[in-house]
């Protein structure tokens, strides 16, 4: 039976089963009904590591600001003060790249520019495009991303939000991923696809590339991924773009789906950064999500082209 292992991204989430149902529902909007095709699925759920209670208000989760959740206030950045000196350069550099310290020219009404790293691949790099994105939404998301990425990549200690035990973030989340993947693979001889969204792509890539105990999968999809940001990939151990493809654990293809106006996936194309033996093999699939906040999982999963790729990966 084909199987999809999902990995969610930043911010708080609804309870695990509800989140999984939501994602299945979003996919069905794009033309892929997993149940109808007897595809099983599971979720690597790590929101409970960071948050004591799941996101309660499902409607806010599905709102336009989607995956930012219902955080009413910005994350406190005082944690940066405690960052060791040698890691500080990473935080400062990523912080600058994420540009949330820039004041919105529209007094919190909109952000006038989306920072796109110039890419030799792009025929027409986006000039500072005016997008009516509520500034506070972007700011909160970027602050959350900064913290999640830092804590994960540098394997920082963290008091588990539900168990209260201190855990090392990367080790703990890696374990969640590895265990889920192993459980999903047990006795399953069908296609096995990992689909990560947002920070979930950092987690899944890291495990597929760097963890020996990780079981192999047949295909991989990254959605709204920050993996293209140089501060992110440069901090993966032994990163070399010419051989960054997780070939040992990934038997089939890697499709990366992005929206150029997704502020989390702002360096969106991955083919050049994660080559397989000096060859660009990743399919970078550009989509255009609706509305102002382009990072929402439901908007990506409702894209027919994403579903088409997933149908092919699942060999349906």
């Amino acid at each position, binding site marked *: *039976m*084909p199987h999809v292992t999902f990995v969610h991204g930043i911010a708080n989430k609804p309870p695990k089963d509800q989140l999984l149902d939501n994602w299945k529902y979003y996919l*069905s*909007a794009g*033309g*892929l*009904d997993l*149940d*109808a*095709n*007897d*595809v099983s699925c599971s979720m690597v759920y790590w929101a409970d590591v960071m948050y004591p209670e799941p996101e309660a208000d499902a409607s806010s989760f*599905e709102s336009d600001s989607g995956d930012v959740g219902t955080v009413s206030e910005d994350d406190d950045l005082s944690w940066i003060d405690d960052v060791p000196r040698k890691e500080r350069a990473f935080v400062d550099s990523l912080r600058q790249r994420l540009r949330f310290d820039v004041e919105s020219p529209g007094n919190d009404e909109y952000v006038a520019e989306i920072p796109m790293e110039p890419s030799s691949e792009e025929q027409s790099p986006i000039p500072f495009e005016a997008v009516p994105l509520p500034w506070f939404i972007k700011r909160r998301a970027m602050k959350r991303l900064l913290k999640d990425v830092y804590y994960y990549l540098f394997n920082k200690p963290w008091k588990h939000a539900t168990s209260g035990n201190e855990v090392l973030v990367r080790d703990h989340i890696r374990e969640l991923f590895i265990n889920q993947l192993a459980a999903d693979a047990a006795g399953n001889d069908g296609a096995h696809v990992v689909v990560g969204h947002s920070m979930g792509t950092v987690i899944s890539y890291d495990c597929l590339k760097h963890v020996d105990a990780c079981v192999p999968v047949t295909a991989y999809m990254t959605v709204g991924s920050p993996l293209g940001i140089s501060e992110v990939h440069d901090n993966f151990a032994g990163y070399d773009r010419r051989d960054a493809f997780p070939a040992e654990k990934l038997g089939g293809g890697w499709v990366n789906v992005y929206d150029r106006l997704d502020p989390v996936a702002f360096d969106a194309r991955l083919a050049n950064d994660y080559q397989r033996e000096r060859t660009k093999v990743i399919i970078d699939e550009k989509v255009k999500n609706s509305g102002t906040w382009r990072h929402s999982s*439901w908007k990506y999963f*409702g894209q027919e082209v994403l579903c088409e790729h997933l*149908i092919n990966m699942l*060999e*349906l």
Partner: protein
Amino acid sequence: MVANDEDPLDRLIQAIRRGDAGAIDQASAATRNGENNEVDHAPIIEQVRSAAAAGDFDRLEQLSLRYAERLRKNAVRFPATFLSELASAVDRFDRDKAKSLCEDLVQYHYGDGEPYPLATQKGILSTLQRKRYFDLMVTVGDVLIMRNGAIADAGSATTREAKASIRRRYAQALIDSGQLAAALAVLEPLVAECRDHGIMSERYEAEGLVGRVHKQFYMNAAKADSNAKPAEDFRSALDQAINAYAGPYESDEKNLWHGINTAALVKRADRDGTGIVSNRDVTGDARRILKRIVAMKTPTIWDFATAAEACLALGNYPEALAWATQYAGAEGADAFEYASTLRQFEEVWKLDPEDPQQARVLQLLRSALLDKDGGVVAIHDPTRTVKQAHELADDGEFERVLGKDRYKTYKWYVTGLDRATAVAKIYNPVGDGIGTGFLVKGSDVHERITDDWVFMTNAHVVSDDPAEQQASPAALAPEDATVVFQAGPDAGKAFSLGEMIFTSNRNALDCSILTLEQTTAFDRPFRIAKNLPAVGEGKRARVYVIGHPRGAGLSFSLHDNLLLDHQAPKVHYRAPTEGGSSGSPVFNANWFLIALHHLGGESIQRLNNKPGLYGANEGISMQSILRAVAGDLG
């Protein structure tokens, strides 16, 4: 965790006391999770009490299940168990089981056992109505009404009202099964009795149904021959319908459905030029109805539909669409309700499918209907409907009004319509439609097939095997068959069948795959599913059969079916109504092709070594067909 504050053991004991097997199951499961063994257990069943006191939840569950099983075996003796068993059968579209339970119920009530409580009787009739088992409602209603006796005999006002309600539901079943005069014979005395005993709510409902009978007489007459005027008797039926609906509304303006039907029929009388003169202020009525619904804190499903109708009366189609959107998204509405509203909008209001504003309302309702368990959508003007459905899907304003969820359902429905453009009717040389077939991509069937599209149907419909042509029913020789598509780029064109690529007779895969002599312009490929949806405990997969309504010309229908079981090469599924015709494609909920429809019946052998027969439709799985083709063609 226990779902509510009520002690689970109390719930279990209450369920046992009531003899309600379904509730026993639920309470038993909750008890296992509750782990509260400190309560003072009431001594209802000694074994249950001792098991509970010991905190032996396994034992408690065993006892409960055994007790529930005993109840189920004699369900008819325990009204609550009977009702939950019936609801379960109806929910699975298991007509055989529902029929057998109803027969037990009739026999029981012919005996001298205590008649069922009136509330349970009402529940039974509602349950049957939910899946349109009107004939069973009539069968059951006959004996229940006789056992209940005259309304006047009843003691309390509540009992009188309940008896009246059961008669009214019985009459409603007569209407829905087309027995209009019989329904009137029940309703007219019922109205009088309700009036005599001051049972106002039932009186209004019964008067409304009298209106519905007259309305249906008129509609039937109007439909019978659209070129001729209906007979005078039936024209006066429209007048009688208006009066029957208007009475309750004039007595109490809270009778909204009477009010809106009055408005609808006055408008219709005017449009049809019947000469019926009404002094009703239809616009004023519609405005008042709408105002009342807007002011409601918790409008019901029917209120949304009524509000949409009020907007139709006011000619405000965008507002009608907005209300219909709320109606389509309402919790608890089922296929029966959406089908009734769609019929009202098409037949009574005669919404114009050519008008983009009015068409939006119709298309939305069709998508809501198909999305429901047991939904059947008949498309009588396929070419226009499919084209218009696509235009609306691309209309940003329509998407915005529908909202994310409704729009998703709408897009899904449009994909279903697209699939229907691959479906054709097969005619014999004298012009009788004898079956269905559909286009499949040649390369999807086998890599060596070079034709872009090939045509698939049953071998018992088209075959080059003389044995099939002489069997009963006789298959057509390919050269005798004419294929006509209902919609899409080839709509209405006649195609001939060419070379037989593959055939397997009716006792094997019942499949023929042929080339078409003419080139098709069809250009909407679809996938063939590699896997069938899972079946079993907790699974409720739905499959869709695209076929043809009986006797209709260029039209098609999409039927929702519940997947029952599969065992290669067979797939079983069931709908509450008639299934698709032979040779129809069967799709999963993703609109991937899963099977070729082959037959349906009341006595189909169960699959996977399960004993016995059941009512089901049977298809042949596409993967089995593809494997056989690969074996044949190499």
